[in-house]
């Protein structure tokens, strides 16, 4: 269960504005990446985002470059989940692999505004906002297992340890 404050953005939020290309080949720890999160879209984000906040986007969130830092920087900034009408496939994978929940929601996102409170119930697959409930489908088992283990690297370490 997550309850957080909404940061609202539009359609086609690309990975260049989430994490600019000029930083992508510089060695950086996740905490430093968080300082540049959303830099070219919303310069106020990195300074004001709070642990547990939720990003709400339109369609095709995370399109463009495969840069994984776009997911890593949001996770490190404290973002608890990203809700969008649809996601680009590479960002979707990167988010899961970084332990950042991504929720596809066709209905409801238009009504969510900056500063609103949303809650996400993963067990029931429900997003709640201002008295409304929106259902989202569960992730496939093998994908959910990665998210539940906190990301791909801890997941693979666990699997490799089990298989000895």
């Amino acid at each position: 269960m997550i309850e957080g404050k909404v940061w609202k953005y539009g359609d086609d939020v690309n990975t260049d504005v989430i994490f600019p290309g000029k930083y992508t080949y510089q060695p950086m720890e996740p905490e430093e990446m968080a300082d540049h999160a959303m830099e070219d879209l919303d310069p106020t984000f990195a300074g004001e985002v709070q642990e547990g906040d939720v990003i709400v986007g339109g369609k095709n969130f995370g399109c463009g470059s495969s840069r994984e830092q776009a997911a890593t920087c949001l996770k490190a900034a404290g973002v608890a989940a990203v809700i969008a009408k649809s996601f680009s496939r590479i960002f979707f994978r990167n988010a899961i692999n970084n332990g950042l929940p991504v929720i596809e929601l066709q209905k409801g996102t238009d009504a969510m505004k900056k500063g609103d409170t949303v809650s996400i119930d993963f067990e029931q697959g429900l997003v709640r906002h201002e008295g409304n409930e929106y259902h989202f489908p569960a992730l496939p088992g093998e994908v959910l297992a990665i998210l539940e283990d906190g990301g791909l690297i801890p997941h693979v370490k666990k699997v490799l340890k089990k298989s000895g």
Partner: protein
Amino acid sequence: MGMTFAQKVLSKKAGLDTVAVGQIVQIEPDYCMSHDNTAAIAKTFAKIGVKKVKNPERFVIVLDHTVPAATEKYALGHQQIREFVNDQGIEHFYDAGVGICHQVLPEKGFALPGRLILGSDSHTTTYGAFGAFSAGIGRSEMAVLYATSKIWLKTPASFKIVVTGRLEEPVTSKDLILKIIGELGADGALYRCVEYTGEAIEQMSVASRMVLSNMAIEMGAKNGVCLPDDKTTAFLDGRAVNDYTPVFPDAGAEYERVLEFDASSLAPQVAKPHTVDNVTGVQDVAGTKIDQALLGTCTNGRLEDLRLAAKILDGKTLARGVRMLVLPASQEVLVQALAEGLIDIFIKAGAMLLNPGCGPCLGAHQGVLAPGEVCLSTANRNFKGRMGSAEAETYLASPATVAASAITGVITDPRDAFSRSVA
């Protein structure tokens, strides 16, 4: 029931008779590509706790994004990658200067029909031009591939895009793909495999097909495939690293959508800032002043692109106030361009020649933009801030449009300049 190209490749790789759309399969890719991001991937790999890369012969590493190193930090990354490939016995390593990964893999014969290739770069879709199933992945996934060789993939639904007629020079496959993306939108083919087919595709060169596959990701596609033919075979003769069996979709394959485009009536297209699907005919933006013209990148840095631009620029000079950057996609392209005198034409026109690489396309180094500046580029992305300042603007167009506009200093329909050049 017949299967699409994507279903056939994925079922074959998964060892299954058939796979349904949406089905998740565990597979081992034939080849995996990474570039300057290998330094970060190697660090993540170390965290997994596996000492040696499994199947090092399946990994191809190309340094291209920030070459030669622009800063000490980049240099350090390159140094770490060289040590990593030596320690791990990764033989398919192409150091700075050889070219852009998406040009190098085809030239070195890794991009083969029927192969499944994954890369930690979104434009890995380029190898679809050779009938390969190729898609981008993230860095953590590449690190896990080092450790296990395995990854999960979801079987995509497929679109068939039929392109009738023939492209008429100087209109190119870049104009065609911009038109397609403009119509479908940046998420128009989200998660789909796109099969390009029809007379225009059959007629065009392998290099032109690479533009279509390269930019499939810009409409959200997982991959964009052209079916292999005699032209593919001719390109791969003497290059292919091993034998290959092409994979074709079944006649009764099911497509979610079938779309038709006509190449013969197509005008030059331009994508306006700041999204790739913000496309219009060149006439609508003609007269827009430009500061920089960029010819190159994994989209349009091949020999036929340089030839077309040189034809228009031959004997001309750049407009006052315009700087032009030329980045051949690879050493092989550069050597051939030198032999044909193309580089001579560019330099005499006043352009700057940069080494093969990604350069300014992603704003990491070489020719980045100041606030308020406008770049007309042959690249594949025009996102806000991508080429430097978030206050700069990038327009995308074909090599012909970029060359014609560099002469006038404003966005210009290349058809007049082209017809004068061949008259």
